[in-house]
């Protein structure tokens, strides 16, 4: 395999794992599930973006961020603002005191669109901002923290505080942000109705495609020298610094990449589910997203995706039938993952795959199928 595909796919093993996932997402699930459940799956897939970002940031970089919800939310809000502006044209809103502005602004006696909403009238600009706004925030936070050598637990607590600040701000400024209900009633994107069945299918496939794309990007990063340095920094930051690397730059970069990937997930969430609210921005959702990555395997991109799907599927199932049980389960899951299987499901799979030499067996009988996480590779896929 030539070098580029080696970097993107991690050799034969990574390629196979990714192919299986792609097969599931693009073929098996769409055929097997009805549209409603496919929509649920699409929702989980958007969370998976954050899980992947955490594999990069936390699993490989050793940087625990308890505020990834911020970036997910910011990406989502940017998209929501564009869609809301489009849905608030003067004709549909003619019953408002001030037509042509979003309903919640009207309810809060605003009479004009605030200045920071203006850029979201244009789709290209919105798409750019979806990527830029969260990344800029991440850059500011990262610069302030990593240049001052703040890391570990302190960093985690501060990301938590910032997520809290952002969520309080959004909820408090109802007129500007839609408050606790968020931005809802989204209808069309450049005239294309996003609520129709066909639109939902298209959005689902776009979503899955973007996820695979982000995984390839993450893969590229992890198999490069940068990826190896990330692992080195996680385990022995001092030594890396004394080998001539400006550690803070690397940390800032990966934090920004993680923010950007999470933001894409957020924007896709808004498109598929049709709203965005502060309930995705704060402390609780951020830490839930960490558990998705932890359960699936914080070192494994594919594992993190499966972990997200699994945990969310469990949540939906349990919350309906045994809501009380679910919170216990979730708490227990946190504890269990930390105490008993820190490498998540991917780690467990790896252990048994090695034990029974599934790789060898499989290679013998099926020329494809190998391990998820190659040993000593720093857990690339």
């Amino acid at each position: 395999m030539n070098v580029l595909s080696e970097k993107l796919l991690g050799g034969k093993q990574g390629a196979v794992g990714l192919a299986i996932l792609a097969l599931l997402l693009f073929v098996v699930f769409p055929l097997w599930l009805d549209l409603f459940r496919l929509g649920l799956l699409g929702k989980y897939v958007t969370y998976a973006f954050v899980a992947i970002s955490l594999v990069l940031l936390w699993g490989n970089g050793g940087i625990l961020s308890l505020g990834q919800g911020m970036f997910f939310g910011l990406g989502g809000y940017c998209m929501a603002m564009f869609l809301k502006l489009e849905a608030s044209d003067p004709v549909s809103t003619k019953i408002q005191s001030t037509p042509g502005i979003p309903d919640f602004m009207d309810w809060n006696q605003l009479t004009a669109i605030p200045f920071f909403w203006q850029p979201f009238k244009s789709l290209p600009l919105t798409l750019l901002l979806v990527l830029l706004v969260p990344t800029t925030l991440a850059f500011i936070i990262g610069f302030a923290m990593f240049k001052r050598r703040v890391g570990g637990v302190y960093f985690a607590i501060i990301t938590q505080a910032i997520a809290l600040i952002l969520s309080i701000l959004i909820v408090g400024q109802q007129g500007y942000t839609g408050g606790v209900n968020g931005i809802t009633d989204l209808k069309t994107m450049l005239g294309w109705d996003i609520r129709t069945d066909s639109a939902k299918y298209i959005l689902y496939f776009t979503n899955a495609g973007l996820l695979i794309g982000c995984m390839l990007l993450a893969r590229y990063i992890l198999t490069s020298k940068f990826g190896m340095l990330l692992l080195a920094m996680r385990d022995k930051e001092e030594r890396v610094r004394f080998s001539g690397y400006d550690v803070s730059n690397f940390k800032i970069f990966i934090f920004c990449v993680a923010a950007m990937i999470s933001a894409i997930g957020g924007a896709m969430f808004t498109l598929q589910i049709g709203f965005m609210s502060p309930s995705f921005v704060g402390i609780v959702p951020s830490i839930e997203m960490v558990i998705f990555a932890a359960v699936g395997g914080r070192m494994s991109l594919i594992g993190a995706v499966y972990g997200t799907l699994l945990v969310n599927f469990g949540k939906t199932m349990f919350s309906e039938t045994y809501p009380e049980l679910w919170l216990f389960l979730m708490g227990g899951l946190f504890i269990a993952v930390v105490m008993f299987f820190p490498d998540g499901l991917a780690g467990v799979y790896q252990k048994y795959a090695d034990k029974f030499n599934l790789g060898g067996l499989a290679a013998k009988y099926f020329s494809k199928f190998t391990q998820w996480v190659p040993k000593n590779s720093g857990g690339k896929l």
Partner: protein
Amino acid sequence: MFDYTMAEIGNIVVMQGFSGLSLFSVLLLMALGLAIIFGQMGVINMAHGEFMAVGAYTTVFMSKMAVKYDIVNTYFVFAILTAFVLAFLIGYLIEYLLIRHLYKRPLDTLLATWGLSLAMQQTFRSIFGAKEVSAELPEWLLGSFQPTPDIDIPINGVFVMGLALVVTVSVYMFMYRSRGGLRIRATMQNRVMAGAVGINTKKVDRLTFALGCGIAGVAGAAFTTIASTGPTTGSLYIVDSFMVVVFGGAASLMGTIASAFGIAQAQSILQFFMTSSMGKVATLMTIVIILMLRPEGLFASKVRK
């Protein structure tokens, strides 16, 4: 914001200052427990708020009993003690079951204790219901006194402050003037040597963690005098408490006190002049910015690099 007279502003400051003092007292008690656990042991206990809730629920429960047996005016002090003991015991148990396995892994401790907090919240919900509950306060805690006609000072606020003061002084005396405290500080500063001179470091760890939780229980009891308690009450204060500890410089008792005071006052006063949420945002943002400029906190001890 500026259409008050100077006298009125003075009164507002005093009254907000006092409500700030109640907040300060609760924050201080929470932060004291956290400072011991985090500052001394380096353990992040995300369930600390839930230990506070344990204390609060205990007090509520005992107040219900007190109403039944008509001892409403006398039960409160016993409730505080019970809150301490119960939180202490649960903390002891948790350290044994969970925390002691995770000392070398602070980030994992964070996640595990978050899971614990979820489980505890659900336990509260299952036992006490999802709605908020209040304690029947004894008569001597109700009402307020008025040093001047324009200033209204609630008695429960003064009580809570007094309680915080007593606890803080006790903790100080214990940590810095008793053998038990000496053992704790020895273990934290040099575990190996402490073990070598015969200190049972595992037991000390357990007791330290339990002590921190016990203090949180007292915070919970104090909390019932100013607000009602629900399953998620603990999570309301956890971020603030961590901010207080980190801002004050995790290892410093004085720092914790100063930090709790500053933060509580800033929030109260800001909240009067801005909306409640903006006040909180402003306070938190200021703390975060200051921490970015001075990560070790206000009163960090000078350690040789």
